[in-house]
């Protein structure tokens, strides 16, 4: 009998079992990034910079060279690598706390310098690893362990729109906000991720894809409810949108 492979994972994933919670989108997003790396044939020249947060373990899940940056500093670490090795592909994978709170300055300045880097920005509106505290992207009224009465603008300010901010930066070559909640969305997200890598590979500028993501555990929902909540609430605050595409087809 002929044996054929009916299904396999991307080469650029290490095969190590994900440690993410059921219903969390990190798994989907990891897979999309790995597929893009495979399809672009860049596994042997890619270096990843993992953040501090739930995806701190990402450096173990990807089968590429990698390191873990101090919280918020992934784009500074990646800048140092890329400046040392301009012909390699360097990407960061960061959550909302990492990229949009503690690492805001590094994010803004790397984008503004037009660093030839790619960033996957996973926005799930909550601090996951530390146990569900308010994130800079937490929605108004959203309850977290540090906004037990819901986020109030007068105390906590407003959800920060990083993609909108970065869309004003001339160094940015590709910038899109996507979701991965439906098969159609997932296909679109993958295209965006590929373009964000091409922005770097073609030496055009900085590429970033913001992926709206669920956190059923810290949102206190089932995976299905979380999916629904994301589509009904998060996309209102953070509408999926292509902001910048200087990569072309």
């Amino acid at each position, binding site marked *: 009998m002929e044996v054929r492979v009916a299904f396999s994972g991307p080469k650029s994933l*290490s095969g190590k079992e994900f440690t993410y919670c059921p219903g969390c989108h990190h798994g989907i997003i990891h897979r999309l990034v790995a597929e893009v790396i495979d399809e672009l044939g860049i*596994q*042997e*020249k*890619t*270096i990843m*910079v993992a953040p501090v947060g739930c995806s*701190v373990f990402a*450096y*173990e899940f*990807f*089968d*590429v*060279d*990698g*390191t*873990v*940056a*101090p919280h918020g*500093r992934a784009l*500074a*670490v*990646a*800048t*140092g*690598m*890329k*400046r*040392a*090795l301009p012909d*390699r*592909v360097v990407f960061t994978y960061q959550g909302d706390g990492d990229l949009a709170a503690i690492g805001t*300055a*590094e994010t*803004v*300045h790397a984008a503004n310098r037009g660093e030839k880097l790619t960033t996957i920005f996973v926005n799930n509106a909550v601090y996951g690893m530390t146990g569900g505290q308010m994130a800079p992207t937490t929605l108004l009224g959203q309850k977290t362990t540090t906004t037990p009465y819901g986020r109030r603008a007068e105390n906590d300010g407003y959800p920060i729109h990083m993609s909108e901010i970065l869309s004003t930066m001339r160094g940015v070559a590709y910038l899109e906000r996507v979701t991965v909640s439906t098969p159609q969305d997932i296909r679109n997200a993958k295209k965006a991720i590929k373009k964000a890598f091409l922005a770097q590979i073609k030496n055009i500028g900085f590429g970033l894809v913001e992926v709206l993501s669920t956190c059923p555990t810290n949102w206190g929902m089932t995976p299905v409810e979380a999916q629904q909540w994301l589509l009904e609430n998060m996309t209102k605050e953070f509408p999926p949108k292509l902001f910048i595409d200087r990569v072309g087809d």
Partner: protein
Amino acid sequence: MKKLMMKGNEAIAEAAIRAGCRLYFGYPITPQSEIAEYMSRRLPEVGGTFLQTESEVATVNMVYGAACTGKRVMTSTSSPGFSLMQEGISYIAGAELPCVFVNVVRGGPGLGDIQPAQSDYFQATKGGGHGDYRLLVLAPSTLQEAIELTMLAFDLADKYRNPALILADGMIGQMMEPVELPPMRDLSTLPDHSSWALTGAEGRAPRKVTSFNIDPYGLEEMNKRYQEKYRRVEREEQRWEEYKTENAEYLLVGYGTMGRILKSVADRLEEEGLAVGVFRPISLWPFPDRRLKELSEKVRFVFTVEMSSGQMVEDVRLAVDGRIPVHFYGRMGGVVPTPEEVIRAFKKLL
């Protein structure tokens, strides 16, 4: 070889380039901004990369990223900036990455002032950031020595896969004196880091460089490895200079700028018939305690002078271990003691 008049900051920068450093990241701060300015002009000439960063926090992490690739990289700053870098330095030490820092120390705490000081000794030699780690710390007292130690710092950093620090002060940074520059290091002779550096996993299994280990037993093993390395450094890398210690009855101890001022003090006291020697630690970590202990068995007392409230004197006391009195004189806030006032303070002890 021809002697050049150079400013300390520029001498350090040129020495780094001659050591094979082609990557510099930095943020301006007095009194060391000439290092960044010099690098911005000079690195492009030798095919290197200079980047002015958005902050010292970004700087140290760019150094981390560049060091991950195994290339020689450095940054420079002054005290408040060095404080901002501490988190990143801890990561660098934990990931065992070679790189060189320069702290041209100024008066503190807080915003303090911009005058020469030695008040960052604890931060430099005891770790500085979180966790059990050490930097290799070298303290030049002349510009020629600043050049030699900058080159040495790169070599030691590579040898031990550990960050190294040049601990200077505003006087070393700003003053000029004649120096001889060593020849340019041939980049092909630099140490090979291909066994661990992140370069993209072409033709080999992917690898990770990190200070992270969620398993406490695993992390303890990593710490044991660091500590074994530090013990080796303590055995093999103690450096110091002795001046007129041969028949000394009294021993002055000071490092960096203070160390050279103490030589003038010893000269003048000799003219007055007093046998005074100078012990000048060059490596502040590892502190040269073995030789200091030996010397302390031959003199009546030790007199430590610092541009601080008394930080290195704690290591002096540990080395002397109560055998003889250890006295201290210091000026703070960026005030540099003159030879005359040190002599007055010394004579009160006789």
